[in-house]
């Protein structure tokens, strides 16, 4: 443990840093720090609202630019123009200067205007085009009606004269045609008409309404337009109908117009005269073709413009996003009007201070400013945030821990042992050589194509697996190992070494046969494959796996308990060692450590050789509590005494755990009171203030105008410290806390040990499931013969393989992973994890862009 190096073992040492930045280069400094991404800025203006802050104006302007860029993006999506991917830019988007930003926002503004006007004209043109097409259809269709209707006018007139026959009867009755009446006949009859277009789905209601309001005094003709018409505003296709309505009298015509308009129909002028109509059609056609060429031109300009934008849109988006983040961060700084400086407070890893200082120096040199940016370290009683430095490999493991809770500042990071124990416990449940191999290969593939996959968009499930690719790799490797130990490969045995069991050679088929042991030989690695497919295979492997899981659980929990010792050492709380760790350890070991000892001891004795019945360990443990001292089936000599001593030890430890800590705390508190301290917070605050002043005095020798200003800055810090955390000691609270802790610990020792039995249960389930799968698919195929057998083998192999991957690897793997997760969160971390840390959230462009990716 090197003291000045940040490792994965503890969270990094942090220091609260104060920056005095000259106003002119504030933006550059903050953006340089954003590139660095190691500082967690504290909000110094938390009492002011978002609108009252210094840089709200700038943020608004950038918001506007961002909106414009999004508008471009939406337009490009609409026109299906691809955007140049962010990864094709080779520069790393160095922080732009202020003038560049101004230029960008101006350009975005003018481009927006241009595109908007282009769009608008395009849309109006499109609308005109649609109108004209509809009109053309109306003309064409209505012409047909008129030609047909001409023959009917005579009849109609008769019926009109009759006046009692409904007009619509004519529609149903085909009438004689060919009677050449003039076109003027309609006007003679005082029959007007309305022609237009209406969406098809409105047609029935339109008809019904017309019929009801006019009481049948109309003659209606309609036909469908074969091709759908595109609405330019919404880009939807609507199929429409052309209708022509003939009716009698001006008022009725007006009524029809009103109804049709209210139902969303478009009405068009159609002339009765066929010649005029032909002219109209001609005109409409020529206008349409004109419009089309204009439209095409507009479209190409628009597309060209958008393509030009698309080439740099991604870069602009990144720039604007960074710029916005910079101003948002600057809003957190406090501005000193008298000295024209910005004061920032930020947490940063102590090891990163040198880097920060040199970066600031660079920025200063570039800006050519004589006033340097001053970096101070402030001592404070506030808890620093927890920052664990991760890399690609450790990131996923750390995420497992962080999902449970943020570790306390400089607490032992449970992520370190988790790197091994998590995949290992997983593998104990997932132990199968073949499945482990599949998993390893998948993880290797993901790691190999890492770069490519990082850039492409992944769906949710796959991206989760991708995120945990290194966990998967470890899980796969350990599964291969445990598979070898369990002697399972896709549920078949792996015969590496000769078996320690020999089958007798003479027996009747169908007889139950017992194997005999090869003398003096124990199968050297893993489970003997001789157990495979035997009748009492489960009997043996159950007893083995159950004991295995208890032993592993005991080892895991003991290690976790030891971590709590390391924590207590680190936080310099000897009382935690003597009142929590030592009695807890004794309690745990005297019960479960003893059980583990008994298990191992029982294995080492050849019970048949000494002619004794092997004792049941479960009963031994139960009777150890029920009737201490009396042994029914002795394991070794002097067992009774040992057990009595162990139980006494365990029982003694409980009151020690219960009472020692609260009473010690009370004694310490009373002593402090007697010495005259009121509270702990006050004294430290004073010292912090003093230190701060001294340091500033050294660094700010020349450049200070008045002392009063400086006081302001310090006062601001001390205010924050005032809110800091020191609580009054209360004995009852401490007592309750300790009682809960003790009861929890003692009960959890039992329940957690039992909880590790899930290792046994899941590995058993996994093994049995893969055996069943094998028997159901491939085994049946092998039993067939001939061509049918070949065919069945091929088919069932695919079935078996897909089921193996999906059910056994993915489904079972997920469940084993969840159980392993639980074993870590509940069983192991409850032994030492303190938690209640504050996560470190550095201001970093990289994180920012990862959170809100740009296509």
């Amino acid at each position, binding site marked *: 443990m090197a003291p000045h190096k940040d490792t994965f073992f503890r969270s990094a040492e942090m220091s609260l840093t104060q920056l005095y930045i000259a106003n002119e280069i504030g933006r550059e400094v903050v953006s340089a720090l954003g590139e660095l991404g190691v500082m967690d800025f504290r909000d110094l203006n938390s009492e002011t609202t978002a609108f009252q802050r210094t840089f709200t104006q700038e943020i608004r302007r950038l918001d506007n630019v961002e909106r414009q860029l999004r508008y471009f993006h939406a337009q490009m999506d609409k026109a299906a123009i691809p955007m140049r991917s962010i990864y094709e830019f080779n520069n790393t988007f160095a922080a732009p200067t202020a003038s560049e930003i101004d230029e960008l926002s101006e350009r975005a503004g003018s481009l927006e205007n241009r595109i908007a006007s282009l769009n608008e004209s395009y849309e109006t043109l499109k609308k005109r085009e649609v109108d004209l097409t509809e009109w053309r259809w109306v003309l064409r269709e209505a012409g047909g009606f008129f030609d047909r209707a001409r023959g009917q006018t005579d009849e109609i007139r008769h019926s009109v004269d009759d006046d009692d026959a409904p007009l619509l009867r004519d529609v149903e009755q085909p009438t004689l045609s060919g009677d050449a009446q003039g076109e003027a006949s309609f006007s003679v009859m005082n029959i007007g008409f309305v022609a237009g277009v209406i969406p098809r789905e409105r047609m029935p209601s339109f008809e019904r309404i017309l019929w009801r309001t006019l009481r049948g005094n109309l003659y209606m003709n309609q036909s469908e337009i074969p091709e759908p018409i595109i609405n330019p505003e919404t880009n939807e296709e609507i199929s429409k109908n052309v209708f022509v309505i003939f009716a009698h009298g001006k008022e009725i015509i007006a009524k029809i117009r009103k109804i049709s308009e209210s139902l969303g129909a478009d009405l068009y002028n159609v002339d009765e005269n066929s010649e005029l109509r032909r002219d109209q059609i001609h005109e409409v056609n020529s206008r349409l073709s004109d419009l089309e060429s204009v439209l095409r031109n507009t479209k190409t300009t628009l597309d060209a413009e958008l393509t030009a934008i698309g080439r740099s849109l991604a870069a602009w988006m990144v720039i604007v996003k960074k710029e916005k983040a910079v101003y948002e961060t600057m809003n957190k700084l406090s501005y000193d009007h008298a000295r024209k400086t910005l004061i920032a407070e930020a947490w940063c890893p102590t090891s990163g201070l040198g880097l920060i200082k040199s970066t600031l120096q660079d920025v200063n040199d570039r800006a050519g400013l004589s006033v340097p940016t001053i970096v101070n370290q402030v001592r404070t009683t506030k808890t620093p945030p927890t920052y664990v430095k991760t890399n690609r490999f*450790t990131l996923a493991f750390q995420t497992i821990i962080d999902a449970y809770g943020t570790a306390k500042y400089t607490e032992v990071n449970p992520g370190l042992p988790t790197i091994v124990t998590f995949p290992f416990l997983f593998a104990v449940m997932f132990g199968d050589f073949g499945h482990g191999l599949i998993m390893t290969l998948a993880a290797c593939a993901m790691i190999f194509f890492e770069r490519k996959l990082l850039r492409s968009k992944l769906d949710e499930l796959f991206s989760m697996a991708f995120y945990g690719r290194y966990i998967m790799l470890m899980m796969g490797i350990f599964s291969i190992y445990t598979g070898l130990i369990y002697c399972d490969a896709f549920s078949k045995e792996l015969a590496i070494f000769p078996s320690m069991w020999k089958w007798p050679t003479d027996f009747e088929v169908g007889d139950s046969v017992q194997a005999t042991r090869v003398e003096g030989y*124990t199968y050297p690695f893993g489970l003997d494959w001789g157990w495979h497919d035997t009748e*009492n295979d489960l009997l043996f492997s159950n007893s*083995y796996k159950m004991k295995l899981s208890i032993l592993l659980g005991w080892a895991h929990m003991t290690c976790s308990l030891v971590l709590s010792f390391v924590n207590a050492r680190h936080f310099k709380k000897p009382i935690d060692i003597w009142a929590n760790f030592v009695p807890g350890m004794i309690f745990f070991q005297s019960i479960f450590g003893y059980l583990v000892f008994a298990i191992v001891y029982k294995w080492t004795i050849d019970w048949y050789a000494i002619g004794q019945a092997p004792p049941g360990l479960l009963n031994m443990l139960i009777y150890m509590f029920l009737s201490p001292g009396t042994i029914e089936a002795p394991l070794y000599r002097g067992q009774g005494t040992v057990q009595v001593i162990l139980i006494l030890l365990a029982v003694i430890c409980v009151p020690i755990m219960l009472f020692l800590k609260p009473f010690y705390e009370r004694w310490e508190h009373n002593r402090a009171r007697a010495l005259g301290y009121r509270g702990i917070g006050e004294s430290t605050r004073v010292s912090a203030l003093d230190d701060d002043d001294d340091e500033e005095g050294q660094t700010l020798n020349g450049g200070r105008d008045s002392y009063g200003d400086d006081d302001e800055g310090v006062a601001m810090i001390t205010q924050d410290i005032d809110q800091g955390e020191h609580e009054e000691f209360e004995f009852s609270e401490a007592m309750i806390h300790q009682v809960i802790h003790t009861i929890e610990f003692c009960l959890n020792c039992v329940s957690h040990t039992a909880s590790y039995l899930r290792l046994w249960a899941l590995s058993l389930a996994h093994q049995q499931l893969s055996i069943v799968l094998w028997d159901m698919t491939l085994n049946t195929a092998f039993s067939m013969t001939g061509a049918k057998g070949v065919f069945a083998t091929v088919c069932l192999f695919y079935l078996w393989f897909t089921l193996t991957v999906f059910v056994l690897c993915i489904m079972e793997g997920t469940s084993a992973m969840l159980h392993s997760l639980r074993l870590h969160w509940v069983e192991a971390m409850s032994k030492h994890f303190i938690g209640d840390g504050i996560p470190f959230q550095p201001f970093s462009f990289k994180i920012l862009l990862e959170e809100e990716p740009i296509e």
Partner: protein
Amino acid sequence: WSLLVGILVVIAFCVASYFLAPKGEDQLVWRSSLMISATACYLMWAITFLAQWHPLIVPQRNDLRPEYLQDKML
């Protein structure tokens, strides 16, 4: 006593990994991972070995055929 040999091998491995772990920022991660994995693997192997050292039951099956045994022997 293969168990003791196993312990010695694992201890040797741990010591080796302690000193031979790649230098740099992640030295601690390498060291601890290698050592814990070695220990975990050894534990598992040792438990399995112990469990079979003096087995209380012997394998038993009733679907044996002479041909099967011949296969195994060869």
